């Protein structure tokens, strides 16, 4: 069998995605609030983080690489980088690196844009211009890549068989702990969507930009909040496949509806 016809979005320099998101990317913690205001005005996606300043060593390149991976993810249509001006991760340099991969990028710096209100106004205008220039461009999805997040022991073979049968590619992260860290790793592998099997003591989680399907276990916590899961503990591999395909074909997951999920940016070294 092969994948049924699914229309995705052709994204310049990023391939075909299953969502058409505009990313408002704060290059530093100091621009996260301004970024959220811009995102709220234009319907873009942003996230709070605590990085970009007072970083040293391997984290300087690591943070750059992570932000570049986010900005060049196939589910992203365009990116507005918002910097403060005096941080380590300079917004303009980050934007230049992203521009080398895709031209659908703009940047703004609070200290040069008249402060908070000026940056929100200029940022919203720039984001709208980007959204017009790099608008919806429906395109058939030739390849679907699914991230499989295993934070608990799961009999995963049946799902893998179904995916292979359907010609769907997958990447697996199998590791104990919270899901957020694993989602970041899968994002860097450019998966279109994620199916997550969280630890029985962890709630379902989401990831901005990437639809996440959460599968419940039989744990007391998961049973107590079963309505927060896209798939119940008795879901078969066929049920999962069906959900994966409908999600790829634009049906929103629960975490997308709630807009929940923080991004855990990988760090190795303390702040100075």
């Amino acid at each position, binding site marked *: 069998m092969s994948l049924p016809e699914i229309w995705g979005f052709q994204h310049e320099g990023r391939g075909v995605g299953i969502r058409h998101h505009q990313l408002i990317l704060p290059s530093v*913690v*100091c621009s*996260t*609030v*301004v970024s959220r205001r811009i995102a709220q005005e234009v319907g873009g996606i942003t996230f*709070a*983080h*605590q990085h970009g*300043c*007072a970083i*040293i*060593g391997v984290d300087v390149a690591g943070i750059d690489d992570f932000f570049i991976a986010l900005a060049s993810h196939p589910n992203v249509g365009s990116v507005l980088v918002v910097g*403060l*001006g*005096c*941080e*380590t991760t*300079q917004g303009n340099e980050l934007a230049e690196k992203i521009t080398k991969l895709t031209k659908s990028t703009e940047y703004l710096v*609070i*200290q040069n844009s*008249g*402060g*908070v*209100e000026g940056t929100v106004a200029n940022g919203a205008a720039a984001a709208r211009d980007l959204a017009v220039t790099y608008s919806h461009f429906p395109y058939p999805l030739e390849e679907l890549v699914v991230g499989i997040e295993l934070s608990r022991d799961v009999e995963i073979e049946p799902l893998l068989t179904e995916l292979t049968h359907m010609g769907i590619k997958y990447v697996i992260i199998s590791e104990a*702990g*919270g*899901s*957020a*860290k694993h989602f970041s790793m899968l994002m860097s592998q450019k998966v279109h969507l994620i199916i997550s099997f969280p630890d029985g*003591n*962890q*709630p*379902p*989680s*989401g990831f901005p930009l990437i639809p996440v399907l959460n599968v419940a276990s039989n744990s*007391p*916590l998961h049973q*107590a*909040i079963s*309505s*927060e899961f896209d798939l119940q503990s008795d879901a078969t591999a066929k049920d999962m496949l069906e959900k994966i395909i409908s999600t790829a074909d634009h049906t929103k997951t629960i975490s997308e509806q*709630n*807009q*929940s*999920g*923080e*991004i*855990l*940016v990988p*760090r*190795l*070294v*303390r*702040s*100075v």
Partner: protein
Amino acid sequence: MSNSTSPLLGYPRPDGRWGFRNHILILPLHQALSTAARDIAEATPGAVAISHDWSGEIDKDFERITKTFAGFAGNPNIFTTVALTIGTEVETGIIERAKRFSPTPLVEIKLSDAGSMFKLVTSALEKATELAEQAAAQPRTPAPWSSVVLGLECGGSDAYSGITANPALGVASDRLVEFGATSILAETMEILGAEHLLAARALDPKVGAQIIEVVARYERSINYEGIDIRGAQPSRGNIEGGLSTLEEKSLGAAKKAGNAPFTGVLEYADRPTAPGLYFMDTPGHDIEQLTGFAAADVNITVFTTGRGTPTGSAVIPTIKVATNSEMGLVLTDLIDINAGTISDGTETLEEVGQIIFDEIIRVANGQLTKAEHGKHHEFNLSRLYGSTL
């Protein structure tokens, strides 16, 4: 200024601490609840929320993180904290610790009891609205000078920092300490090279030795990463602002603490136990520092900046002081006070110190800062990752 009758009006807490705000804090103890917390606070006048990326991981930073959450939940500017939890033992541990730390009331709402995110948000909204009404009805009462726990902060320093805003803040800090208030200098990196001058001001030689040791420990911790901090700092933003060396940056940064003697040294997020001037070991990272202050009872902060920054705290009013008029007169929606007038020659250090002192009183008594108007509620967990202390 010699008048030492306190004009302060605050909210007395049962254990003798004072708040200058009466917030309802919506505190998610798992990252998956951050969006819910934000939604609840946006729908409840008088409530504030934070968001973070922690999922209850028990690793090397666990103690630092739980101490931060527990202290933050009990900041005296909070009327009641509404903690949102998944319903795990790790979260119960933090809540128990927060209750031991302080009598600031705390309400817990568990996702596992609510049964769904929708029900959690609904019941938290109802509770927060009821609490916010109670908080709004509590009157301010006359507060003594000792009610002030002042946080001293700088970020995006430039060549003017050490001659305008920082020493002017030092004038205000000295006066408050003289009147019996508490003031906390922090950012270990930013006293590196000036530590001997601060140690010489210690009330007790043991405190002086602690200041020297905290700085040495910090430099060892950065050396451990294979980095020479004196080469990595000042930052690019600082250099563009005209600073040449870390020592120059430090000598200027330390001026925020005026000339008062040092009463003690605090570990990150630890609370001062008696009035006086303290040094707290924090990263120079603006928000990790501000979060550590909030966990340590700080109820008002003055933040000097050369380049301009909009950041603030969900629970601490943060007054921004510009070091130069070029920025201070342009980024007016970030800056509360322009100390650039000192280098312009239109005001003296003593005059701007008085302006900062008066602003601290006005803000303590209820005037909103620019960061509060803009709802700059940044919050960061300070992690050490693999680094040694």
